[in-house]
């Protein structure tokens, strides 16, 4: 069954090709069949591959499939090689499952859109790229998927391209992530030239052999990979693209946030965790970036008015947790949180999409309310996702994974009190904004009547994801991945749990029990200033606009007419002047010429005679 591995990325790719070539000729039903079906094939193939994988003896559960050579020059021989190990299996399972569910959901939710075929075309390419990324056994192939994911995010964020704001958001996402990609590419250069191979397994093995722990080359390489991951995963300081990426259709947001794109960075760092083990400094930087981002994003999520922006900042914050886990060496916990996050965040986005569609494309939290009775299915499923996000103890999957990360931050190999504290505060903030979101949307007084209920496809998807969100600890993939167990003391675990609970209670108090109080706090001078600061994501957009965008545009406008032409134009003008100076002697009067000739001849003879 393992031989079917090639089908996993190639099925969505085939779907993409069919839709790209024949999209004008296919009916809507055919488009949906191809678009969803290709992901279904990938899911089925992934299932078969997984069955084959578990049939392998537990000791050597690795499978490689070589599909040919890509770039071969000098000692570099990058191959189209698929590599399946436990980590890739988990990623593949999540990407195919969540991707399939999201595509199924969008078959219904996007039905009215004129770009139906285009949508599925891009989405299939997105899933295919992500699968290439997670299954790549070669670092350069991983980079192919990496850039493919970036391209698809550009295409899908700008899906409704007529709106200039959407096109701008798409451009921003592509450019900002490409900054990280450039760093990643340099990282690849470092690794390839130092190790002489682009095969991930061989590379890590050689790195462990050749580089002592803490060596500066290892740190440099790790930091460059980190910079790439930071770009894709929307962490500080390249996080600015993610909130704007909400411009795309909701299923796109779900896909970007849950199964593809932002988790690519987490996957990369997990895949290369051996390298980070050699570079403790880079690992520390990872953890600090994660902690800072989770606080920044959490506080920003607190004040957003746009439902999808709340979710976007929450993704940034949750990925921040994963980075903390990666930084402290608990990459298994990071992957666990990735899995649960993929489930509950896609659920939240899809449910939010149902809400937004039902209210006629209304995104503003404060114009929603009281939807609990009017959209019961959406409410219950959203609640399941929200509970998981807020880490409601014991019943939700998110609780277990977040607890693991907090425990690792406290007691892990490279953990620390401050990291734990940031995580705990973040957990409280997470619960607070999650509660705010739930209470504002579904409780209180109804401000608008929903116009439609989700149909069977959307409902099925929501229920499946909700069931997974509350299903608890069994999503934990760490038994498969291996790695160290983290034994945190019970008080630490209880404290983390208490932080989340406190956030939920606070949210209940502020937004349900005493909404006036919340309004008063928001309107006080300090509250308003803080709100203004946070709603723009701590002002990074403004800062980058000021130090990068404006000077660049100014510089290019200055040089538009080619300043370097100047010297050559000057040369031309000088020749013109010389020409003008000479040409006055040519008067056209023959007698002057004759006189000049005679004078010249006389002068020449005179010089010859009396010299």
């Amino acid at each position: 069954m393992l031989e079917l591995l090639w089908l996993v990325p190639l099925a969505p790719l085939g779907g993409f090709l069919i839709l790209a070539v024949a999209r004008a000729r296919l009916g809507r039903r055919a488009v949906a069949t191809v678009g969803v079906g290709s992901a279904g094939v990938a899911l089925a193939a992934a299932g078969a591959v997984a069955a084959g994988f578990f049939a392998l003896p537990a000791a050597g559960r690795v499978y490689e499939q070589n599909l040919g050579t890509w770039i071969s020059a000098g000692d570099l021989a990058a191959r189209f090689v698929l590599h399946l190990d436990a980590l890739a299996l988990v990623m593949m399972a999540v990407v195919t499952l969540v991707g399939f569910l999201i595509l199924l959901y969008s078959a219904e939710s996007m039905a009215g859109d004129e770009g139906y075929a285009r949508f599925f075309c891009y989405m299939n390419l997105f899933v295919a790229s992500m699968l290439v990324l997670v299954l790549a056994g070669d670092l350069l192939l991983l980079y192919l998927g990496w850039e493919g994911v970036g391209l698809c995010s550009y295409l899908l964020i700008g899906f409704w391209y007529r709106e200039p704001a959407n096109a701008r958001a798409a451009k921003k996402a592509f450019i900002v992530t490409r900054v990280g990609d450039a760093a990643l590419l340099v990282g690849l250069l470092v690794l390839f030239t130092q190790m002489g191979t682009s095969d991930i397994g061989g590379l890590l093995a050689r790195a462990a052999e050749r580089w002592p722990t803490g060596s500066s080359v290892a740190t440099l390489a790790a930091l460059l990979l980190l910079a790439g991951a930071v770009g894709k995963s929307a962490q500080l300081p390249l996080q600015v693209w993610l909130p704007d990426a909400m411009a795309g259709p909701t299923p796109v947001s779900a896909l970007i946030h849950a199964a593809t794109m932002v988790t690519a960075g987490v996957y990369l760092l997990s895949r290369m965790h051996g390298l980070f083990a050699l570079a403790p400094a880079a690992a520390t930087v990872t953890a600090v970036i994660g902690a800072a981002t989770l606080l920044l994003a959490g506080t920003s999520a607190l004040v957003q008015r746009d439902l999808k922006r709340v979710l976007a900042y929450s993704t940034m914050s949750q990925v921040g947790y994963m980075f903390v886990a990666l930084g402290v060496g608990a990459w298994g916990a990071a992957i666990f949180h990735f899995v649960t996050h993929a489930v509950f965040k896609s659920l939240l986005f899809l449910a939010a999409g149902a809400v937004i569609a039902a209210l006629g494309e209304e995104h503003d939290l404060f114009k929603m309310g009281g939807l609990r009775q009017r959209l019961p299915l959406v409410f219950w499923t959203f609640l399941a996702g929200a509970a998981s996000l807020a880490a409601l103890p014991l019943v939700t999957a998110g609780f277990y994974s977040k607890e693991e990360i907090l425990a690792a931050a406290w007691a892990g190999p490279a953990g620390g009190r401050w990291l734990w504290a940031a995580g705990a505060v973040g957990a409280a903030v997470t619960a607070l904004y999650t509660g705010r979101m739930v209470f504002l949307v579904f409780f209180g007084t109804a401000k608008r009547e929903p116009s439609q209920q989700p149909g069977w496809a959307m409902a099925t998807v929501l229920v499946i994801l909700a069931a997974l969100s509350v299903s608890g600890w069994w999503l934990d993939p760490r038994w498969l991945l291996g790695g160290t167990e983290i034994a945190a003391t019970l008080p630490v675990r209880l404290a983390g749990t208490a932080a989340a609970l406190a956030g939920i209670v606070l949210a209940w108090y502020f937004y349900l029990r005493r909404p006036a109080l919340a309004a008063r706090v928001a309107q006080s001078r300090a509250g308003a200033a803080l709100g203004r600061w946070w709603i723009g994501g701590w002002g990074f957009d403004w800062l980058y606009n000021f130090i990068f965008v404006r000077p660049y545009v100014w510089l290019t406008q200055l040089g538009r007419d080619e300043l370097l032409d100047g010297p050559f134009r000057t040369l031309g003008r000088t020749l013109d002047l010389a020409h003008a100076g000479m040409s006055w002697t040519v008067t056209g009067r023959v007698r002057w010429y004759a006189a000049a000739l005679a004078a010249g001849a006389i002068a020449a003879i005179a010089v010859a005679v009396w010299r």
Partner: protein
Amino acid sequence: MILGWIIFLPLLGGAAAWIAGRRSAGAARTLALVAMALDLALAVAAWSGGAGASGWFAEFQCPWLPQFGISVHLGMDGASAPLVVLAAFLGLLAVGVSWRGIGERVGFFHFNLLWAVAATQAILLSLDLVLFYVAWEALLVPLYFLIAVWGGPRRGPAALKMFIFGQASAVLMLVAFIALAISHQRAVGSYTFDYLKLLGTPVAGAAAFWMMLAVFVALAVKLPAVPLHVWLPDAHEQAPASGGVDIAGLAVKVGAYGMLRLVVPLFPAAARDFTPVAMTLGVIGILYGATMAFAQRDLKRLAAYSSISHMGFILLAVFAFDQTALQGAVLVMVASALSAAGLFFMAGVLERRFGTRNIEALGGLWSAMPRAGAATLIFALAAMGLPGLANFAGEFLVLLGTYREHPVFAVLAALGMIASVIYAVRLMGVIFHGPRKDERPVKDLSWREGAIAAALVAALVWIGIHPGVITANGKQNFTAAAANNASALHDSNTEGGR
């Protein structure tokens, strides 16, 4: 002999097209198309025949001016073969692109177009420096006419600028060639302009440096390298709107080929001393080209700056003294020509429909022209170096080869990735996204245009996922010879340094 035919076919076809064009424009076009198709077939045949034991795909030599050691010496190796095929391929496309765009003096137009292709191929194939120089000059003349007769409103100055830049720099090269032949005569006793015999000619340090510099400057103008690039955007801007001339005459970078073929192999020691300067120029070119591409309103100027940016990689590769980088350089040449050709073609398509190439006057065309949009997207993505398309493979190999010895330059060049994505997304955004500015109904690509776009896209994707077609043979021959020379030299240098 097949090499002679590769050059003669376009010459003959061009002359036939000129004669036929007096009676019927259609006949001229058809003749040109047939000649280029045959030429492409010949080039592919020569290429796919594989390299012989000598390392040459094909070689041809007959005496020309024996008393000076000048001969008609043609040779096709792993570096020139893909480029010869590329020139024929783009020549064929250029005839197709110009099918509807040119209405006046059609015969003479195709005469010039095909002679430009022939001159390009002669440059790529010649192994005699005098022949090389003659072909080099011969390329300028048809190009001058093509721009000066059928070009845009300011075609005169643009054509003249191109001609003066090309001519002034070529003379420098000729002087260097003659000086080299004289050095060879002093050392060996007989004159020769044969490239292979001149390899390894001992030249005293300072003289070698000046010769190298003269050749370098001539090639840097043609490449073009910043700051000698100013003629190229003007030439592209004023070249006939349909884009055939841009594709056939200017997109194939003979300057880049010359850099590879002449500078390092003929003057290895001098070139090595020159490395920091050349690499600095390369990095400046990469960043400057990409940055300026962002500012352009004219799509053809944009494409011109984008290819200036690509040519920076050539400078890095040539002076990296690295096998991997050289293979990457051949890839970059092919890929850059294809992606630039695509953009020039799209510029022609848009100009025909809207009467303007000012991309800021367009907008929101995606729904009206989905096929054109997809093609432009792929060309733009290729130009910015997306993995899976041809340019990435080349640029990556160049960076990899450069990084080994010159990490700083490689890192600076990698910044070009950011600058290139900025112009690529602006290009797409301005033309295809946003609201429609021009509400006139517009047709998507016709089947002829679609076929041209599809051919370019297919080539970009094919080379992108299988760059081996280009690089596999590059290992042989001069590339290897040059790299060996260089690495031998380099080894001795580093040993001395230690």
